[in-house]
């Protein structure tokens, strides 16, 4: 399931419900991204999405993860709007028969969400606001999976 939410969420509750009613899943891995205070430089993070298009783009990334890692299930919940330091921005959960696929799928999904999902992120701090662009490391992270896919 893919969804965007303006409201804060509780990762533990999402994990508990994601784990319910599974008989063939042997492994669930999760990732929770949390807004940093950046030593006082960031007061509020503002996340913008393109409603409809953003969910569809994440859906394609999730489908690719299901195919590559033979997942039983995947959950992506992403905040939009204004986010305070310490609040969760993104929660990803993956369910697979075995742990390796669950771990790798989680890693894959986050790498794509960082620089390939239609979100725009603005940091509001004491010195004003600035838009955050993906770092070179984010592009390198996503490139790892593209190399793996082309290797026979």
């Amino acid at each position, binding site marked *: 399931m893919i969804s965007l939410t303006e409201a804060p969420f509780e990762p533990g509750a999402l994990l508990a419900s994601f784990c319910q009613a599974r008989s063939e899943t042997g492994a669930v891995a999760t990732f929770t*991204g949390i807004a940093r205070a950046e030593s006082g430089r960031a007061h509020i993070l503002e*996340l*913008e999405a*393109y409603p*409809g*298009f953003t969910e*569809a783009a994440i859906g394609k990334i999730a489908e690719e993860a299901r195919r590559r890692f033979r997942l039983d299930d995947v959950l992506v919940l*992403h905040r939009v709007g204004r986010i305070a330091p310490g609040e969760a*921005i*993104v929660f990803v959960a993956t369910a697979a028969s075995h742990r390796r696929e669950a771990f790798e799928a989680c890693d894959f999904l*986050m790498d794509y*969400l*960082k*620089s*390939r*999902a*239609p*979100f*725009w*992120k*603005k940091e509001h701090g004491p010195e004003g606001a600035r*838009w*955050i*662009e*993906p770092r070179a490391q*984010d592009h390198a992270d996503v490139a790892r999976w593209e190399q793996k896919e082309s290797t026979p």
Partner: protein
Amino acid sequence: MARVLLFGPLRDLAGWRERDIAEATSISALKALLASEDARLGEALSAPGVQVALDQAIVRGDRSLGARAEVAFLPPMSGG
């Protein structure tokens, strides 16, 4: 008529998020029209890394715009 959507820093640069533009019949004509109003915005819309979505699908190169087309300019994305 095209509905034009700007995201991220493009929205701040232009000072608007959404506009209906009746005159534009193609993406290139739309860009030229916006550039004639605001040269800095025109330059930003054509910058490398800015993708264009027509009716919520990424397109490369020029496209003609039908009635009620939705054109979105998408600067480099940053989630998570």
